[in-house]
């Protein structure tokens, strides 16, 4: 058993599962958005913000953001452990990644529930 403390789920199995579940959620979200754009050819700002004013859409979008964050963390953590061998640089890179993900997530929430 290889121990580690910086991966997302503290277990390869849960990381693996999270990666797949989050991918499915993002795929559904993407399909939904693309379909919505196709079925609303003359889309204006009012309709678009009306869509995001509905609670179910906010929850759905938040779910997609959280999935994206988890997915990105698991994926980028893997990339850093594959390619960055010096521990200091690796931990630095991981810190930058998690901070960026955190910032984007909070920002996303603010946009969703903001004005």
């Amino acid at each position: 058993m290889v121990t580690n403390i910086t991966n997302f789920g503290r277990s390869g199995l849960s990381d693996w599962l999270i990666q797949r579940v989050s991918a499915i959620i993002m795929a559904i979200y993407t399909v939904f958005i693309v379909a919505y754009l196709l079925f609303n050819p003359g889309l204006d700002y009012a309709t678009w913000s009306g869509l995001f004013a509905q609670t179910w859409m906010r929850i759905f979008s938040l779910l997609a953001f959280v999935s994206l964050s988890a997915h990105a963390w698991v994926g980028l953590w893997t990339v850093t452990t594959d390619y960055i061998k010096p521990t200091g640089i690796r931990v630095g890179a991981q810190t930058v990644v998690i901070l960026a993900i955190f910032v984007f997530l909070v920002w996303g929430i603010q946009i969703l529930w903001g004005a």
Partner: protein
Amino acid sequence: MSTLQVSIYRYNPETDSAPYMQEFQVDTQGRDVMVLDVLHMMKEDDNGLAYRRSCREGVCGSDGMNMNGKNGLACITPLSEVIKGNKLVLRPLPGLPVIRDLVVDMGLFYKQYERIQPYLQNDTPAPAIERLQSPEDRDKLDGLYECILCACCSTSCPSFWWNPDKFVGPAGLLQSYRFLADSRDTATGSRLAELEDPFSVFRCRGIMNCVAVCPKGLNPTRAIGKIRDMLMANAT
């Protein structure tokens, strides 16, 4: 054209400051010999050429090497299968430290094999005769126990290149599943517990280089998938 152009990786730590590629002209007399035969011919000219070999029939796993870019066993690879434009390029297995010429240090590879506890564990008292096993249960070991530890698979796997100390690698995982799949083994739980971290099994990205090079036609990727299924079934 019976003269083969061979380009071979050379390095002797005592006499060379760096590895280099050496060119040989080998006269195969037009015969479709095995790559190992070509090595023997070269060794007659240059006695110092180092490579491992033993059974010369593809069951001992000594002479895994990289031939024109693909890993395989020199003794069961005929020239007709590998040469491109009458040229043969021989390099050691990638990703492991080179000791000399085509001889690599297999230490990390063996260590990963040992890590998965490659032996039957059964905590029930042994009967006076053999433990019974149905032919169906025995069939589950086919495609697993035949591994010859040649390291062709693990050294063609990028995940093993990046983390040879943490990722068990296709060969070790194939053996791991060989014991997980054995109806006589009772250590399933502890075996799985050793594997559920993010490296040991989960570094496999399913690119199937291992399957493409296995000289015995085995499928480590499938075995890894089965381990994942068992881990999932066990933990959810």
